[in-house]
């Protein structure tokens, strides 16, 4: 069933891709092939392989249970928030919080997580920033 849904999504993606390829504005300086042809070939093969997946699906993969699924979503949310707030909060604080969260969810004890989070953050800061000179996000506090 998963594969059939996947195939249908793939087919829709192919149609959408083909449709937006047709919307590409041609330049008057175009070469013989033009900017549309290659995307259209891709869309065609994408569609065909999606149909093949619908016709001949593989065995069902083992999907995570709802709880595990929520875990992953929560991790994604944490990472996206990290990406957004990194320039505002600064590298050391943001990284400590997110890595503490991740290691906690992977089974470290709460107090252990805080220690791991701070160590990962400071460790990366020392090695990558102080030793290698990589520019990391500077927050209002300067680190």
């Amino acid at each position, binding site marked *: 069933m998963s594969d059939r849904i*996947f195939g249908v999504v793939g087919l829709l993606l192919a149609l959408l891709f083909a449709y937006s390829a047709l919307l590409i504005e041609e330049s008057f300086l175009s070469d*013989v092939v033009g900017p549309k042809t*290659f995307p259209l070939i891709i869309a065609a093969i994408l569609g*065909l392989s999606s149909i093949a997946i619908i016709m001949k699906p593989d065995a069902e993969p083992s999907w*995570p249970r709802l709880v*595990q699924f929520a875990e992953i979503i929560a991790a994604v949310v944490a990472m996206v928030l990290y990406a957004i707030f990194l320039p505002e909060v600064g590298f050391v604080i943001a990284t400590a919080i997110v890595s503490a969260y991740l290691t906690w969810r992977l*089974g470290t004890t709460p107090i252990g997580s805080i220690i791991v989070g701070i160590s*990962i953050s400071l460790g990366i800061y020392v090695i990558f920033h102080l030793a290698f000179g*990589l*520019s990391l996000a500077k927050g209002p506090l300067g680190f």
Partner: protein
Amino acid sequence: METLSSLVDGFAIALTFQNLILALLGCFLGTVMGALPGLGPSNGVAILIPLAFSLGLGATPSLILLTSVYYGAMYGGRISSILLNIPGDAPALMTCLDGYPMALKGRGGEALALSGFASFIGSFLATWGLVLLAPQLVKIALMFGPAEYFALFVMAFATLGGVSSTNQSKSAFAAMLGLGLATVGVDTQTGVPRFSFGIVHFYDGIDFLVAIVGLFALSEVFIFIENRHGSADASGKKVELGRLTPSWKTFMGSVPSILRTSVVGFIAGVLPGAGASLGSFLSYSMEKRLLDKNGTFGKGDPRGVAAPEAGNNAAAGGALVPMLALGVPGSGTTAVLLAVLLALNITPGPLLFANNPDVVWGLIAALFIGNFLLLLLNIPFVGIFIRVLLVPPRILMPLVAMVSFVGIYGIAGSSFDLIVMVAFGIGGWVLRKLDVPLVPVILGILLGDNMENNLRRAITISDGDWTVLFHSPLAIALWTISIVGFILPIFVGRLMPKRVKKVNKTAQEETAN
């Protein structure tokens, strides 16, 4: 002769202090990454790319660092296979079969040393193979026009799925997904924006480094979060190492196997789409068929440890041949190395040998040096890496995630790219769940522009005649290989039999427990 003098020049480049330090650092980090379950050569190299760039290294030093990581990871994978029965990376899977039983018998140290020697010989011979074969392939590649190049790219995609994937339609899907992503951004030939949906960030296209780190490194983190591997601390199952050198008799008994499997592995590596996993699989099954008269294979036969290790290390060297000579990688890790070259503004392929001989030969010389360093690191100092294995995934995985973020932020410097990377991470997780291979996606993103440009150039030269794609005998040969390579696996079935999958399953359960 010409080759040899180029090689000598290469050694002059590789033997500088900075490059030696980088090779040593790369070998060390690579072995660590290979040894850690969940980190393999491809994601290991992927998360270090941004570091190489932000250090401001030149082309040759960056490549030396990253290929040392690659060779190192091929060595390191065996350590956790032998000691924990968990393959450190996919190619080290076959090493579990005899390595772990040897460790259970108290011969773990011997197995580590023997497989270290086997890895060394495999890599050493394969690097010579690279020196001899790559220039010959370059001579052929110099005859390629745009039509032949287009056919070559088609061949790379058509044959890529055949070996590793279960389902050809899924590998075709993956390749098209990658190629489609490559078309995002301003069209290089006409200057019109494509598929950017008005988002300015997409005008430059999707940065392939962002995609690679997301797909390889972050998706691994999500897999761990899903399975909550937290309890899989290695400390629970300590095995006796025993002596750290194999007896002379054991060693000599394995030498014929090592030599045979080095050749097999090298060939498997050169072939498009095969790579190191197939190299080690073919090596093991060939030796088992040849030598297993008393049923000792699978119960701790030293030859069963030596064979797959020589095979996968030889394949790693072999896989560099098409990547350097043609610019078409045949495996996940060489695809990542291609990304490094592209990001450094170096176009691999025949012109690389003519225009940047210092890069090519410096790199090859560094591989020879790295191989000796690895032998040294992996025999007397193997204890360091065993201690590294004690780092539990619950600490390791957040570290991998954060290093990925740091690296991408270091080169891209925007929140937007970080979010795109997370999107690739979750996309990679879904694709892995659905058994869609990720390597064709990466390859598509990397080669898409080049493939399209060659197609358009070929058709433009012929003034709109599409049959030009099939005019030369060389092009016809490439198309034939593509078609056969794509269709054959559908009827023949997987080259890798189910048994490997089964071992993989047990290994996975091992990690989950």
